[in-house]
């Protein structure tokens, strides 16, 4: 049917989306061109065209310059520490979903779900503002502790350099736990009723049902999400660490994303910063392909 204009229709359909593809090219692909700054000695007022080409100098400095090496090692340690904590507790949303769906009182369950999902929808700046109101020296927690007579001087939670990885993980969990559980709740709702009935007939206890019926049916979802988390191991994001950063915790809060930001926007070392960014993106792509390959091998299905 309508064969005579197939070719032109097909081209015309592409032309409709062409402007959008151009936009996507500008904002998602063209920034890759920014990587050329890594090969020049670029200092802001002087345009790139007048900056000297230095080849791999910045990349070499990352392994040769002792100060850089020490800084970078600390930053990598922080990145691994915080991403590692996230991976270590990646099962938490699954367990959250399992036990949430175990709650029989519908209203209570819906209330809990609504309330625990809310923090996902506020920005990191707002999280920081809440944290500041709770935990600063004149904050509510210190107020409570003082009223209870537990402390004489306020505890400086936010300025502390101790346990920064852990507190950052706790804020991430506070913000995202309820939201991340939704996928698993969806998976639980997809479980075939007959499985439950069979377990019931066999006289399974509640924990046995969870272990032998619910858990196995959630593992595919868990696996995919775990792979995606591994793929974004180096991408902690900037905002959370930027807003919580201060002079006291800087050493233990700087993850790669924050470090490249501080180097460039704070220190003006654009070229080095771009070099690190570039390495980070390349390693991330390799990670993504690796987990995708792993997924194909183990499940016969790619995740991307």
């Amino acid at each position: 049917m309508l064969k005579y204009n197939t070719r032109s229709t097909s081209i015309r359909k592409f032309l409709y989306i062409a402007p959008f593809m151009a936009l996507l090219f500008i904002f998602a692909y063209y920034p890759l061109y920014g990587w050329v700054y890594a090969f020049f000695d670029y200092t802001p007022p002087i345009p790139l065209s007048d900056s000297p080409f230095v080849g791999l100098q910045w990349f070499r400095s990352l392994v040769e310059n002792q100060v850089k090496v020490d800084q970078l090692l600390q930053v990598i340690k922080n990145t691994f520490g915080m991403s590692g904590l996230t991976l270590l507790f990646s099962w938490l949303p699954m367990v959250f979903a399992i036990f949430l769906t175990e709650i029989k009182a519908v209203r209570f369950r819906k209330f809990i779900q609504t309330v625990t999902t809310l923090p996902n929808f506020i920005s990191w700046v707002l999280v920081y503002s809440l944290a500041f109101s709770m935990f600063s020296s004149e904050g509510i927690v210190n107020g409570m502790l003082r009223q209870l007579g537990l402390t004489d001087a306020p505890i400086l939670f936010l300025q502390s350099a101790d346990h920064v990885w852990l507190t950052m993980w706790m804020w991430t969990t506070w913000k995202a736990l309820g939201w991340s559980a939704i996928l698993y709740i969806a998976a639980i709702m997809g479980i075939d009723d007959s499985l439950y009935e069979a377990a019931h007939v066999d006289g399974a206890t509640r924990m046995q049902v969870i272990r032998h019926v619910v858990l196995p049916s959630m593992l595919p979802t868990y696996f995919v999400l775990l792979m995606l988390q591994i793929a974004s191991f180096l991408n902690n994001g900037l905002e959370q660490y930027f807003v919580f950063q201060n002079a006291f915790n800087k050493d233990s809060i700087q993850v790669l994303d924050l470090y490249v930001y501080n180097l460039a926007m704070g220190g003006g070392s654009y070229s080095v910063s771009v070099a690190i960014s570039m390495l980070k993106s390349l390693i991330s792509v390799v990670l993504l392909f690796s987990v995708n390959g792993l997924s194909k091998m183990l499940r016969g299905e790619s995740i991307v």
Partner: protein
Amino acid sequence: MSDNLAELVPDMAHQSRLDKKTSYKMSATDKFISVVIYTLFSLFALICVYPFYSIIINTISANDISARGDVVFFPKHIHFQNYIDVFKIPGLGNAALVSLGRTVIGTSLTVGASAFLGFMFSQEDMWARKFWYRFTVITMFFNAGIIPWYLTMRSLHLTNNFLAYVLPTIVAPFFIILVKTFVESTPKELQQAAAIDGAGVMTIFFRIMLPICKPILATVAIFAAVDQWNSFQDTLLLVTDNNLYSLQFILYNYINQASSLSTMVNLQNAGSTAMSSLSTKQTTTSIRMTVTIIVVAPILLIYPIFQRFFVKGIMIGAVKG
């Protein structure tokens, strides 16, 4: 018609099934487990809600009491002066307009583009469709990094430019996937019938698919609006012009410099006839908390309405995998 199609979207109606699933005889251990579950969930829910509650009661309590951290469970000496005073801070009104503007304009553009592209990518006869779809989706999994991004945006003159808020988000791969999955779940005959009647692809999109896609577009609109409202990083990187500061950015600045602002508002009030009693005198805490509530209010207000949409949305995404 559209009502029937809306049912294609899996939603929480399934939840009633859960009740059947969990009806076992309760042993003593089961009861103990129940108590533990209820307690833990209640505690976590409390931790999620209390920060919001506590800031709200602090902003309407006497400022001198609140500054000491003494408002913990209930407001003390309720007044609403803070909400009048914060708008005396120069720039706050403007920032609210910027945030509102980028949310309205940015969301409309993103929703329109996601609807159109989601629909177009379902058109199997489009030239090189697979290639362009991959070209789009793959951008979810890599990026050049923020500094290369900043440097190229600057070379495109998108610094200190309102367009930098709304242009980059127009083509949003995740939303496009959502819409495409939805379109593909509708009967093909709909489009075929219209095509036989002589409708062009644009007519099919505007007259047939757009009305059908309403439920999924509502979901996209909510996600996109929340993203726009919460956006902070683009202002941080690209904007130095005060007139383009968003509410989020201004809040971040206020947290770090609220003391000078409270002094300024108090000076303004002293100049007028307003009574500057201790309870309504602005403190660092009162300014910071009141601005926080103003920034979070839109989210808190629309949250009860939109939360039923995002459950649908994420589940369509989950089907896609």
